[in-house]
Structures are given as structure tokens and as C-alpha cells.
């Protein structure tokens, strides 16, 4: 079997490649610290009440993004409006940063431990030791390409309607499970297309309005929904979910 040749050839791969894939076990003490961090995160939800006293330490940064695994990410400070809109804590502590998954000029990229199974948020540790959020800003797609709706949900760690916590539309937040299930299914079953097809065939020029979805893990993302066309747009992918998507 020819695949056996590949398997055996891999045995002699350079040691640095093999070591890169080695599982790094967390020190048991870090598990205790992780629990402590969760407690701190709950307490830090009170932070906004005191933020004005120390405003100016962090804020939105106008910096270019980075590319990880074919997707663009913005670098944002903790406490910035973008990070708040994404549902992220106002401070980043060391134990929120998990295993390193990439190394960039800007710093090392780490998993965001509070929310598993998602690729919408990573932690960037800069060379000076400080941390930033890396926020998903779209897959690098050609005008003819798109991402299916289930992949959109998977980006935020949502694998079923049950993992969708809410949606906010026109100032109103909906948490009704039947509605969320209906929206989830409608998007999954919708016809999808890329930017070129949307502009050519679906865009009625009436514009769209923000629809914010929230995953059970707390991550939030905003897509654009047009009531007139029934199309939901998300970073160059468009889903014809229907004009009656929302109640």
C-alpha cells in the first residue's frame, strides 16, 4: 500500500517538526490558577463601573491585522469597543492564553482558553509580554467563493441551535429557543453565495442592518441582514435565509 510509504517516510522528519506537534501538558498548578482566573473573570464584570477612573490605559488600536490559517484577524486591546462587542472580558490574564498555535512578527498566537472549539478569538502575546485579542475578521475568499452557514457558526463554536444563546435585532434581544432554532435551521438550509453573485443577483441596494448573534460561550458576532431581500451577509458570504427570518 503506497500510503504505507508515506507513513514510514514521516518517521525521518526533522526533529523540530515532530516536537512542534508534541502535546504540551499543563502543569497541575495551572489548573488551580485557571479556576482562580474564572473567579476573577466574574469579579471583573464589575470592572466597567470603575473603568472611568483609569481610562486611557487601553483603547482601540488602529493596527493592521494578521493572517492565521487563511483568515484575517484584527489586533484589539482588552476593553476596546471591538472586544466588548465580541463579548470578551475587559482584561486579559496569562491563564486565558492556552497552547501556542502560531508565531508571527507581532508575537505568539495562543488559544483563547475560556471558549473552546472556536477560531473567532485568539490571544496574542506581544514581544513585550503584553496581551491583545485577535478577533476574526473574515476568511480570505475570492469574490466567487463563500463559506457555508454551518462553517460560520463553527467559527464561533456553535455546532447546534442549542449553542446559540441569543440574537439582537433592532434593539431587541431574543432568547426564545424556538425562534433561535428556527433562525439556525433557516440559515443552515439557505442557499449561499459569494460577493460577486450577491452584487449581481441579490443586492437590491436597500442596505442591511446589523444582526448580532451570541454563542452560549459568550462570543458575539454581527452579520448584516436585509429585510427586503432576506439575505444575511457575513464577511463576503451571503445566505438567502428568507424575508421572514426574524419574528
Amino acid at each position: 500500500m503506497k500510503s504505507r510509504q508515506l507513513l514510514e517516510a514521516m518517521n525521518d522528519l526533522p526533529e523540530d517538526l515532530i516536537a512542534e506537534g508534541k502535546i504540551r501538558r499543563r502543569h497541575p498548578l495551572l489548573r488551580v490558577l485557571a479556576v482562580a482566573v474564572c473567579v476573577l473573570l466574574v469579579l471583573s464584570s464589575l470592572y466597567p463601573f470603575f473603568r472611568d477612573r483609569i481610562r486611557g490605559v487601553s483603547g482601540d488600536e488602529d493596527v493592521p491585522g494578521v493572517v492565521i490559517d487563511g483568515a484575517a484577524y484584527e489586533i484589539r486591546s482588552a476593553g476596546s469597543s471591538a472586544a466588548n462587542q465580541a463579548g470578551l472580558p475587559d482584561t486579559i490574564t496569562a491563564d486565558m492564553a492556552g497552547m501556542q498555535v502560531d508565531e508571527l512578527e507581532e508575537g505568539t498566537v495562543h488559544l483563547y482558553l475560556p471558549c473552546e472549539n472556536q477560531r473567532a478569538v485568539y490571544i496574542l502575546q506581544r514581544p513585550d509580554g503584553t496581551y491583545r485579542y485577535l478577533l476574526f475578521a473574515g476568511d480570505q475568499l475570492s469574490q466567487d467563493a463563500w463559506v457555508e452557514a454551518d462553517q460560520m457558526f463553527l467559527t464561533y463554536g456553535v455546532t447546534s441551535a442549542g449553542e446559540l444563546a441569543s440574537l439582537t435585532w433592532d434593539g431587541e434581544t431574543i432568547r426564545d429557543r424556538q425562534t433561535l432554532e428556527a433562525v439556525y435551521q433557516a440559515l443552515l438550509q439557505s442557499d449561499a453565495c459569494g460577493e460577486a453573485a450577491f452584487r449581481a443577483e441579490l443586492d437590491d441596494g436597500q442596505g442591511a442592518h446589523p444582526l448580532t448573534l451570541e454563542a452560549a460561550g459568550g462570543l458575539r458576532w454581527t452579520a448584516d441582514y436585509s429585510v427586503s431581500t432576506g439575505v444575511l451577509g457575513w464577511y463576503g458570504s451571503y445566505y438567502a435565509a428568507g424575508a421572514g427570518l426574524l419574528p
Partner: protein
Amino acid sequence: MDDKGILELYAARSSQAAREAREAYGPYCQAIAENILGSEGEAEACVSGVWDAAQEQFTLRPPAILSAALGKITRRLALKRWSSSGGRRTGGEVLPVLAELEECVPPEGTSAPAEEGRLTDALAAFLRSKPMLQRMIFIRRYWYFNSVKVISRQLSLPEARVESLLRQLQQELRIYLEKEGISL
């Protein structure tokens, strides 16, 4: 004891080397062997031979990265043990991995079969051209024989994303090997 200390013991042919290496990397080698053999007992029997094999190998050529070198010995011994069963063991990940790697095999062509070492060099060059996350997923699946479920948990990615990346990498590797004129 750190890796430098263990390698010094191996260089001095000290009997303590195997003990220290086992303490530092026993679970790591056991995990590799279990992924291949699908049985804790078989894996233990396999791993017991790693430390002495390391003595022979490290005396001739000390490794740069001890964990990787011990991992290589383990993987080789475990695959040999797996093959000796006629490939009938079904508990580990070898059969699914072999099936997936078939997708990476270039179509039959006029290229001469790859000479020894050329295939490994091509694999290394291919992996180095990929982003770190994709490299990690590839190595963890096809070198360490981790299941998709385990990889998705380790990297905090949905299983569907891991599967999709693996399929993408399989296709890209096939195209890469074809372009390099490598046949199997």
C-alpha cells in the same frame, strides 16, 4: 532531570540514562505506542524496548531534541509490532490513517519512484510551507496518530474544522508531490 542531563548520561553509557529517560518521557512514548497499537499492554511491552534502543542510537548520533528522538524510536518499534500482526490490529489509528494518506498519493505517472530520503525531504518542505496550526494538525494526525476528536480537543477547534483542514492538506500534499515529480 533535564534533557541535557539525560543525554550526558546516554553519552557516558550510564545505566541511569534509561531510568531518567523513562521518567521524563515514559507517558509520552506510551501515548504514541497506544495510538498505534490500540492496547495499553501492547504499548507497554513496546515502550520497554525504547530506552535500550535509544542507548545504541544516541551513542552514534546524539539527538537535537530528545523527546522527538525517543518518539521516533517508539513510533518505529510500534509500527513494526503492528505490522508483525499482519496489520490486523484494529484498536489503534493506523488503519484510518493509512486510508486517509491514500488521498495524498499522486496518481500513477511516468516519474521514477522516489529515492530514499527524497520523499521525507519533500514532506518536510511541504509542511514548512504551511501555517503552524495546519502543520500541528497534520503531524498530530499522521505522525502521532491522534484521533480527530483528540486533536480538536487539544487545539480547541471544532471537529468539523479539523476534518476539513486534514482533507485540504491531503489534497495539497498530493498536488505538491505530483509537482515535485515524486511517485510512490
